[in-house]
């Protein structure tokens, strides 16, 4: 049962090659034996010799910047992590929030230590999405604990549990591979409550002997939860979706539009050029920007205003909220394009702005923590035919206005 494989020095996964303390290169790169001294070094002088390689150094691995040292345990050396974030962590957070490198922002799964934990210290289970890992460790200053990081493929706790990646089998696998039973005396682990949609606590207990204690939703409540003897206030067990939590989601919503945007702009350009002379490039240039403006302001209302103002926009269905939020945007488009187009053109721009806003707002359901799949399906069955109808009508009006105007 006990695997004796050496634990590799934990390191940021691929794509995160910089900003690591103590770079370790593979020895004898070309298959030749390297001379022990580099040419610029000499044996002269009584200067103190540079520090020898530590036990954590392994060929081909580099140390992550969040590792402060190593703790010797019965299961081998365990990396001790810092609880403060540095510049590279903050930069990584910003990039992940914007959407760049988000899918690859992960750390090596396994056991980590916070502070100076002993065999009685609590074991906190978490995901290997670096944003999750950072959000957790920054709340653990002054604490002594073990961190069991699961392989959730770089996805956060709730979503990886929802996708079935974070499950009882993964917890059991990680308990065994990190030889947790040799490190701690108590047979219990604190698993975030939001993992419960993927983890059956009884299965973990049955397969590993470790009892699952459902921890609070937010990392900032962990200290109070542990101090209170694993008791959570009702508020610790409820998800929230306040203004700050909604605002941080907006950049990714926009980033994910980069692919469809190209197609949509190309289609708008073609539609704008269609007219009596079949296709007119000058008409496409002259009118295309107005359609693109409607599209851009539709994005502003559907992917920015709806997330930001969610509780204050009337309606429960997101498609409705999106269409309502699109009204001021459409009005603005109309005012900007006022005398350049006729009534049909204005109607097309209105329909287009409202539709884009409605579709994007509906798409935002997936980022919220309170929409049920049954509800989303119900609203989609009603909204999608209307959205398609509105888009087609907009195209007809837009081409028609070019023919008559």
């Amino acid at each position, binding site marked *: 049962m006990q695997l004796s494989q050496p634990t590799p020095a934990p390191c940021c996964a691929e794509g995160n090659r910089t900003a690591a303390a103590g770079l370790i290169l593979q020895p004898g790169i070309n298959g030749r034996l390297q001379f022990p001294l580099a040419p610029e070094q000499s044996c002269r002088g009584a200067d103190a010799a540079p520090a020898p390689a530590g036990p954590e150094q392994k060929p081909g691995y580099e140390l992550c910047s969040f590792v402060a040292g190593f703790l010797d345990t019965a299961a081998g050396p365990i990396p001790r992590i810092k609880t403060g974030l540095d510049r590279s962590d903050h930069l990584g957070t910003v990039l992940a929030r914007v959407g760049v490198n988000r899918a690859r922002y992960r750390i090596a799964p396994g056991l980590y230590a916070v502070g100076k934990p002993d065999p009685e210290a609590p074991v906190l289970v978490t995901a290997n999405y670096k944003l999750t890992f950072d959000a957790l460790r920054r709340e653990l200053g002054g604490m002594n604990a073990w961190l069991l990081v699961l392989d959730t493929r770089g996805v956060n706790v709730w979503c990886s549990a929802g996708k079935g990646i974070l499950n009882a089998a993964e917890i059991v696998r990680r308990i065994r591979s990190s030889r947790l039973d040799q490190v701690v005396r108590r047979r219990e682990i604190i698993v975030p409550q939001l993992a419960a949609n993927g983890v059956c606590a*009884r299965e973990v207990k049955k397969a590993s002997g470790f009892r699952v204690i459902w921890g609070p939703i937010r990392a900032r409540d962990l200290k109070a939860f542990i101090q209170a003897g694993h008791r959570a206030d009702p508020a610790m067990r409820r998800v929230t979706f306040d203004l700050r939590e909604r605002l941080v989601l907006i950049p990714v919503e926009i980033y994910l539009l980069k692919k469809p945007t190209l197609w949509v702009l190309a289609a708008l350009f073609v539609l704008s050029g269609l007219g009596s002379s079949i296709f007119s490039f000058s008409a496409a240039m002259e009118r295309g920007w107005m359609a693109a403006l409607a599209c851009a302001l539709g994005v502003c209302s559907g992917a920015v205003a709806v997330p930001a103002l969610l509780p204050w926009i009337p309606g429960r269905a997101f498609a409705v909220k999106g269409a309502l939020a699109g009204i001021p945007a459409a009005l603005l488009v109309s005012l900007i394009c006022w005398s350049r187009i006729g009534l049909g053109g204005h109607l097309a721009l209105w329909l287009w702005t409202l539709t884009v806003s409605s579709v994007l707002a509906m798409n935002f359901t997936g980022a919220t923590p309170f929409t049920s799949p049954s509800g989303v399906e119900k609203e989609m069955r009603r909204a999608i035919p209307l959205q398609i109808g509105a888009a087609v009508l907009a195209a007809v009006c837009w081409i028609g206005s070019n023919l008559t105007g």
Partner: protein
Amino acid sequence: MDTLRYLPNVTTLQLDRETCIGCGECATVCPQGVFAVNAGKAALLDRDGCMECGACAKNCPVGAIQVNPGVGCAAYIISGWIKGRENATCGCDADCC
């Protein structure tokens, strides 16, 4: 979620109070405060607050809770329409939620 409410009367959540043993696991894991345990039995305190994440059913020791779990995400629903509900994904691997 008290301030943000979604569509009412849509959840597939069902609680069989006869089978329930009142262990309270559902009330612990539910992130929306749907359950309350009174006099040794769970009750649905806020059924419309349910987002069908499935945490309660997954951890009920006696199978007293039924729900069709899934993700309340438009891309996920469309993928379910095309590939069948069992194979539904958000279509973006780690790139979304």
